[in-house]
């Protein structure tokens, strides 16, 4: 019985095995057949590929004689988008103004916690062989601000370039760089004090590069002059004029430098700032109004080191700018409160100021992807000449603007870039730009760029 069952079991295994043998044979034949046809087809394809490649080596001649540029992203126009945001930890100060300085306004940068910066959308292209155009729009919550919208000549020759429209002024060094190209998460104090964030012009810029091996560039700009330190004055004439000169070159293979001197002159009409008045019934917030001339000198210097001119692995950048601003004009104040000494917008006499300051920073890439940097900002309250009897009859002498104080700030940063399109940054700052406040700030920032490469300025 036992043996029988084993036999039956073995037979039950063997019988299908015999049937499977037949199947296997058929399968093998089928596979062999398929192999053969596929081999034939692959061979035919290889021959076609070889045939297609062979003449290509000689015949891929361009339609345009090789003068057309490959565009940065293979698109025309080039489109790029910058995404930027941060987490920021800092003190809660209601109105952040640099002590001793007329508030320049600007894009903020004083939101605490998580925030998103303006997303920059940049579209640019050569319009034809003679002109190039660029639009840079900053997008944020229901507003689209035109940061730049200009055309530039390509065909003037002899070293001349004319730019027209809205553009970032060529004065100084950092002014022409957009926030995503900055080495720190915020602008230097100097830039905040001088212009808010940038000095932009609606107007014309003419630049000339000298035909020398030493880089020498001279520029002049005329424009509307609506931006701080000027104001929009609704006039036919020129609102602001600037001049600048840049010199630069290499020292050996590993060093490059650029130095510049710039000058900006503009006028303000009823430029506003908040003050407290001396109302006996209790202080009111009133408008201080400045009208007059504003002149700014900026000296800038940049030195870059990259071993053998190859910045990919290690490089060092030193950057410093100094400024001197003189303003000669008149102060007034205005208030709607009947008891305020500023009711009826009284004139408060002359206000002549001279202020100086600057920043110096260094950024060191010590290994691929990683950079560290340090920046020192300092400003001087400078000299302000006015008639205290007249001014302090209306405005509170304790106003921050009249304080004799030296704002300063130390900033340390470390950033990590996977490649040139993405960057994460951690920054610590000890900000003493406001008298009586030592603000230890921590910023964790991301900068991502999508789309076309976009060549950066030196």
């Amino acid at each position: 019985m036992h043996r029988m069952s084993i036999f039956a079991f073995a037979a039950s295994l063997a019988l299908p095995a015999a049937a499977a043998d037949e199947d296997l044979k058929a399968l093998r034949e089928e596979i062999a057949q398929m192999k053969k046809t596929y081999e034939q087809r692959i061979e035919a394809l290889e021959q076609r590929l070889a045939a297609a490649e062979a003449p290509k080596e000689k015949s891929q001649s361009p339609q345009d004689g090789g003068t057309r540029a490959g565009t940065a992203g293979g698109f025309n126009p080039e489109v790029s988008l910058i995404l930027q945001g941060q987490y920021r930890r800092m003190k809660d100060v209601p109105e952040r103004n640099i002590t001793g300085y007329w508030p320049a306004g600007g894009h903020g940068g004083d939101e605490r916690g998580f925030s998103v910066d303006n997303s920059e959308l940049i579209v640019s292209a050569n319009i034809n062989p003679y002109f190039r155009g660029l639009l840079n729009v900053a997008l944020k919550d229901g507003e689209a601000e035109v940061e730049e919208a200009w055309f530039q000549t390509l065909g003037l020759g002899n070293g001349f370039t004319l730019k027209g429209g809205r553009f970032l002024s060529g004065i100084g060094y950092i002014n022409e760089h957009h926030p995503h190209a900055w080495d720190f998460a915020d602008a230097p104090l100097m830039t905040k004090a001088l212009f808010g964030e940038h000095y932009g012009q609606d107007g014309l810029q003419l630049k000339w590069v000298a035909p020398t091996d030493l880089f020498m560039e001279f520029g002049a700009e005329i424009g509307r002059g609506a931006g701080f330190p000027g104001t929009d004055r609704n006039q036919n004439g020129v609102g602001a004029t600037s001049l600048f000169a840049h010199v630069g070159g290499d020292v050996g293979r590993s060093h490059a430098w650029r130095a510049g001197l710039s000058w900006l002159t503009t006028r303000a009409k009823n430029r506003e700032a908040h003050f407290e008045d001396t109302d006996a019934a209790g202080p009111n917030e009133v408008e201080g109004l400045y009208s007059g001339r504003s002149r700014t000198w900026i000296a800038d210097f940049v030195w870059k080191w990259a071993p053998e001119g190859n910045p990919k692995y290690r490089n060092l950048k030193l950057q410093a700018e100094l400024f001197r601003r003189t303003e000669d004009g008149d102060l007034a104040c205005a208030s709607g409160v009947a008891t305020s000494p500023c009711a009826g917008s009284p004139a408060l006499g002359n206000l002549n100021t001279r202020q100086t300051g600057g920043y110096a920073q260094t950024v060191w890439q010590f290994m691929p992807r990683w950079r560290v940097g340090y920046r020192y900002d300092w400003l001087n309250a400078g000299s302000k000449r006015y008639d205290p009897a007249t001014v302090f009859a209306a405005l509170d002498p304790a106003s921050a603007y009249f304080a004799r104080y030296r704002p300063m700030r130390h900033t340390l940063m470390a950033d990590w870039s996977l490649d040139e399109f993405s960057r994460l940054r951690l920054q610590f700052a000890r900000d003493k730009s406001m008298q009586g406040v030592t603000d230890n700030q921590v910023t964790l920032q991301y900068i991502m760029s999508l789309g076309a490469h976009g060549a950066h300025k030196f």
Partner: protein
Amino acid sequence: MKRLFLLLLLLSAWPAQADLRVFACEPEWAALAKELGGDKVTVYAATHALQDPHRIEARPSLIARARNAQLVACTGAELEAGWLPQVLRESGNAAIQPGRPGYFEAAQFVARLEIPAKIDRSEGDVHASGNPHIQLDPRNLLAVAAPLAQRMGELDAASASFYAERHKAFADRMHAAIARWEREAAGLRGMRVIAQHKSFSYLFNWLGLVEAGTLEPKPGIEPGSAHLAQLVAQAKAQPVRLIVRTPFDSPRPGEWLAERSGLRLATLPFTVGGSERAQDLFGLFDDTIARLRAAP
């Protein structure tokens, strides 16, 4: 003010050299322009062999040199996208703007490899026009030399026949050299090689070498240890004979891999000036092939 204006006028009239002034983006095009132009050209090489042509800054010195150039000879195919457009625009030199005869892109005259089917940065820093490192296939140099000589002749008509003659002599020498190099490198066919970046695709394509992998996980992304470990395993499964890098790539990832896999790391000159022997275009290939043949 008047004096300043006079000074400016004087300066703008200053460069009265007779030579054709060529601004070459890479050393190979500087070398080619010299081969074709001889003593009738003044060639400025914007980069040298120890620089990664992807990662150059638009330095003031480059703008100053572009200002005076009559011909800009570059690779194109977006290789210089990060700096050349800036240099050209800032130069104020109308003659060398894209679309003008003074602007020459070599990559447009050769059959480019690795033209991506999909352009997405998730694939790394890919170039829509294909791999731009075209100079390591000498047949590409021939393909570029003819239109370059012609362009030089158009810009400097007085020397056009001179350039044409020199081109013919160069092409003859190059044809002979290519035949010799191909004989010398016949034994290399099928050799499996790991490259740091996709810098040698044209060389491998020409000589029949097989790129078994790259140290960069994706173009432009720095090598990481996980990817390198994978390469070690890969090299064990399918034998590889050599790891190659350019003189400007960091030697570290290659050394790391060499240590763990027992493979040899070789530095190929990549362009003119990349090694002692690679002093001109002929030396470049002599040395490259010698270094490949020295592989164990």
